[in-house]
Structures are given as C-alpha cells and as structure tokens.
C-alpha cells in the first residue's frame, strides 16, 4: 500500500435549508473551494472520484452520485457511490484513501452531500429510522433518538454517567462552533439551558442532539510524489480502521471487552460488553487505526479529535471506544475538562482543560450533520488544523490549536453499525 496524503479540502456553508441550490451545485461549491486552495492542481490531474450520500429519499433521485460527479466534470473517469448511514462520509474518505493506496489513482476526489431540508423534519427522522431493521425495530417506534436514548440509559446504569456530563458536551461544542463560520448552530449555552430545553427522548433534550442540514464537503487525496508537487503542506493519512456491529441493538453480544493497548483485562472484570452501552464497532475501528499508525497511548499521542457527536452521549461513549479513557470514565473525562479547548472560556471550572480537544469545529451538534458529507467535513476541519490554516479558512484564528500535528477523525452510523477512524498527521 502506498502512503496517501490529503492535499486540499472544501466545505459548503452548512445550513438548515439551501433552496437556492440543488445538490450538484452545493457539492460544486465545496469542490471549487478545494480546487482553488491548491492552485497547482489542474482538473485534468484528477484520476477519479468517490461520492457519498446517505439516502435516496432526501433527493428523491436514484443515482444522484453520478449526477454530482458529472456536474463536476469528472466523467468519464472512474467513480463510485458510498453509503453507510451516519458513517457515509467517513467510509467515503476511506474509499478515497483506498483508491490512492492501491495505486489505482494518483489523485482522487472524495466528495459527499446531503439535502435533508427537502422533506419536513419528522419525515426526515422517519427516513433516518428506515436505517433500522424494518421488520423488528422500525415498526416498534422508529426514531433514532429513541434508540440512542436507550443506550444512554444503559450507560448511565452501568457507569453512573449523568445528564449534566452530557450537557457539558453540548456547551463545549456549541461554544467551539462560535469561531467556525461554516457551523450551522453557534450558541453560548449553560448546562441549565441544555437540561431545560425540550425533552426529545428521555433523557436526551433538543440541545443534546445534532441538527439536520443541507451541505457538502470535498477532500482531495494524492500519492506522496504528487502531494509534494501540489502543496508544501500535505497531511498524511497514517491510520485507517473500519468497524461494524449488528444492525439490531438487541442482537449484540454481552461478552468481553476488546482491549486497547493501554488496557488490561482486570480493568473490566465485571463488564458485559458491548451490550447496548458501548460501540464495539468504534473500538474495533480505533484499534485498527492505532495499530496502523503505531499509536499505543492515544491520549498522549493524539493532539485533537473530530468525532461523530450526533448525540452528546455518543461523544462520551466514543471517548471510551477510542480508549481516551477507560470504559465507564467518559463522564468524568468530560467533567474534568479533558476534551475542552485550552483557549476558550466555557464559563466552567475545568481542571484538565485542553488535554485533548474534541470537536474543535463544533462537531455535528453545532456544525450540522448533512449525513453524506459529515465524515468528509471532519477530514477538512482536521486538515486545516494540522496545516495551521484555520485563520485563513475561518477568518479568525481563534480555533487554531497550537499543537495539532496529529488528529483523529471518527465517523459513525446506525447505533454503531459502521464506524470509521482515520489518523491524519503533519506530512511535511
């Protein structure tokens, strides 16, 4: 496998609704931004592409992927569509990586989109719920927030996690988004604000849950030789992992923990895993990526994380899946301040603030979640952090981390049916 680098990226403004543009034009905005940011890259140098979007229901258009591709002028070169629930964008990023790593392409464009505003919100939620078993789960109460909320309650039961710890994630990510002009929902909140907002699925409130969006994102990936010709600051993709789990939560085993390099079996003597409290797919994806990148102590060896916080609870569960802390300690991890950014004042006492910033961009909760673009958006925001070009792209350097040599991006689907983890590092 050849080393693969990201040389450029672009994101459309994420919005509740973009009636001014069809999906093709929204994708092109993100693609043009990426192309313009690396002037040495000519359109003709792109050897092929991969495209992602989650649901044909949202566009009411089959084969929308080839239409986005043709609009970008990338025919007759190879292209394929990737889909995998909320992990669609992350799977697309990895498909782009594969295209270059395999030697099939020297330059690959990976782009994704979703236009969720074309249907009313609750119809949109119904479409999303069709990504659960339509024989056994959907007819009982098809609502993804309900499924995740059941996981929250079990996590609380197993580990003592609190709703206030969840709320801290919401405060953090909305505040981070304040400095991100691409974000859809930038708000200064308190824990009380989160707990007092409308209950959606007990114990998750409206502010614990991400927003539906219209948007697109593009990443340009290249082999080493080409990357260094195109830019002085390419970002190397040093680890990739993809994990899976059973669609139905009810089917998941209650067995032994998949141990991270920094864990021991005795850490989890009584824990039945994954049950419905943790994401085995996330742990599996993380371990694969860590092995490939040579990471044995992620909390010390990773500078920041952009992860899939569709729910505040998912963020806490994912700290544990990624072995940033032990299973069960996610609530305390956030409470102590580990995932907060060092340079931002959140109005809370956070003794370990800035240890490992999680979701500097604002995450899905605040940036938005145009499903097919989300995992690629994370890659773009991580790319800009590692390049040190946040000020250029955001118009302000407020969110630029001083140390951002290595980042992890994490994309998540279903109730953890597909999870991708990719490690991105300073490549120059």
């Amino acid at each position: 496998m050849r080393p693969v680098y990201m040389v450029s990226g672009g994101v459309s403004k994420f919005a509740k609704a973009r009636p001014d543009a069809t999906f093709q034009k929204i994708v092109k905005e993100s693609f043009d931004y990426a192309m313009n940011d690396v002037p040495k890259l000519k359109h003709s140098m792109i050897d092929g592409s991969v495209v992602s979007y989650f649901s044909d229901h949202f566009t009411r258009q089959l084969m929308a992927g080839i239409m986005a591709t043709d609009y970008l002028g990338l025919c007759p070169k190879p292209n394929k569509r990737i889909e995998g629930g909320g992990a669609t964008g992350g799977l697309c990023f990895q498909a782009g990586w594969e295209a270059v790593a395999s030697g099939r392409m020297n330059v690959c464009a990976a782009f994704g989109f979703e236009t969720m505003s074309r249907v009313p919100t609750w119809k949109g939620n119904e479409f999303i719920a069709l990504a659960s078993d339509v024989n056994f789960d959907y007819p009982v109460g098809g609502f993804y927030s309900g499924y995740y909320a059941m996981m929250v309650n079990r996590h609380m039961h197993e580990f003592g996690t609190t709703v206030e710890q969840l709320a801290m994630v919401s405060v953090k990510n909305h505040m981070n988004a304040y400095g991100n002009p691409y974000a859809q929902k930038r708000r200064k909140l308190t824990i009380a604000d989160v707990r007092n907002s409308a209950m959606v699925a007990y114990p998750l409130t409206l502010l614990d849950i991400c927003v539906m969006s219209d948007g697109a994102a593009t990443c340009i990936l290249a082999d080493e030789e080409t990357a260094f010709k195109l830019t002085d600051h390419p970002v190397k993709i040093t680890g990739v992992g993809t994990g899976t789990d059973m669609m139905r939560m009810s089917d998941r085993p209650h067995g032994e923990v998949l141990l991270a390099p920094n864990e021991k079996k005795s850490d989890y003597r009584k824990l039945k895993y994954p049950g419905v409290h943790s994401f085995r797919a996330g742990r599996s994806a993380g371990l694969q990526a860590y092995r490939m990148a040579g990471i044995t102590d992620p909390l010390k060896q990773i500078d920041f994380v952009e992860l899939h916080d569709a729910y505040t609870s998912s963020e806490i569960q994912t700290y544990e899946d990624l072995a940033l802390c032990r299973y069960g300690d996610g609530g305390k991890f956030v409470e102590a301040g580990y995932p907060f950014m060092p340079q931002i004042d959140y109005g809370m006492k956070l003794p370990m603030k800035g240890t490992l910033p999680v979701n500097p961009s604002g995450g899905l909760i605040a940036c938005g979640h145009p499903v097919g673009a989300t995992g690629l958006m994370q890659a773009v925001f991580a790319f800009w952090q590692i390049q040190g070009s946040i000020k250029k792209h955001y118009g302000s350097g407020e969110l630029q981390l001083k140390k951002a040599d290595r980042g992890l991006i994490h994309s998540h689907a279903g109730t953890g049916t597909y999870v991708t983890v990719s490690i991105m590092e300073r490549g120059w």
Partner: protein
Amino acid sequence: MTGTTVFNVPLPADLKALKGMSPIVVKQPYQIDYIHSYGQDSPFFAGLSNRKLLGTKCPKCDYTWATPRLACTQCGGETDWVELPQTGRVHTFTTCYFGGEEFLKETPFHLVLVEFDGVDTLLLSRLLGPEQPEDIRIGMKVKAKFRRHSQLKPTDVYFVPAE
C-alpha cells in the same frame, strides 16, 4: 410550502438577471405500498398472532436469540424456533416525546429492551402502563401482552409492569 398552479413565472427583459432569480419550490407527493415479505422470520409474527413469543436457538452453540435469527452468527449453522418466557426485565428504556412522522401521533411512548432468563439477547418493544420515564427502572419486571386482533407487526406484543 404549498403546491400552486401558475400560468407563468415572469422573465426579465435582460436574461443576465436570471442568475439572481429566487428558486422555484414545488411540492412532490410520493406514496408507495410495499408487498413486504417477512421471509424466514414469518413464524415470529405467526407466533404473536397465537399469543406466543418465539425466538431461535442454535442447537450446536446453545445460544438463544430473543429477536429471532435463523442463522447462528457464531457457527453459521441453522437455528431452531423456541418459545420464550413471557416475563422478563427492563434492560434499558426511553420515553419518546417526538418521533418519525409515522409515530408522532403516538407520542409520548416508552421503548424498552427486554431481557429474559435463559436467553442471550434482547427484544425491542413498547412498555405500556407507566406514566413517566421516572416510573421505569432498569431491572424492573415486565410481562408480555398481546393485541386481540393481530396486525402481523412486532407491536402485536407489548409489555406491562409485572411487579
């Protein structure tokens, strides 16, 4: 957004101005009736219509699924249908105050994952009876109830507190 019949949309004299035109938004209704087969899972739904809870068990691995699987995920072999207990415990739960469009009129409702003694996996169902999520507790005993008239859906069974 509502559908509107119009005779025309005015054009500007200078076509260059068209780039600034507001988007035309139209309503597009969509309706599908699927002729859906439950396939190998059909006995589960037949069981509900007979007031039975059926799961599956692997004869080789001795692993039992509360939500039936006709193939064992451990050895790949074919599983057998077995009758489950009708009492269990709340493994976890939530109360949905909102939902997908199809379920909005039923909100609020309680979702529950039920665990059974001697069974390795769980069953997703509705819990009826409690008023508030605070009235539900993980570990709480529940028992199955069946609809008088089967709709051949998983909601033909639901649970109520058994304590």
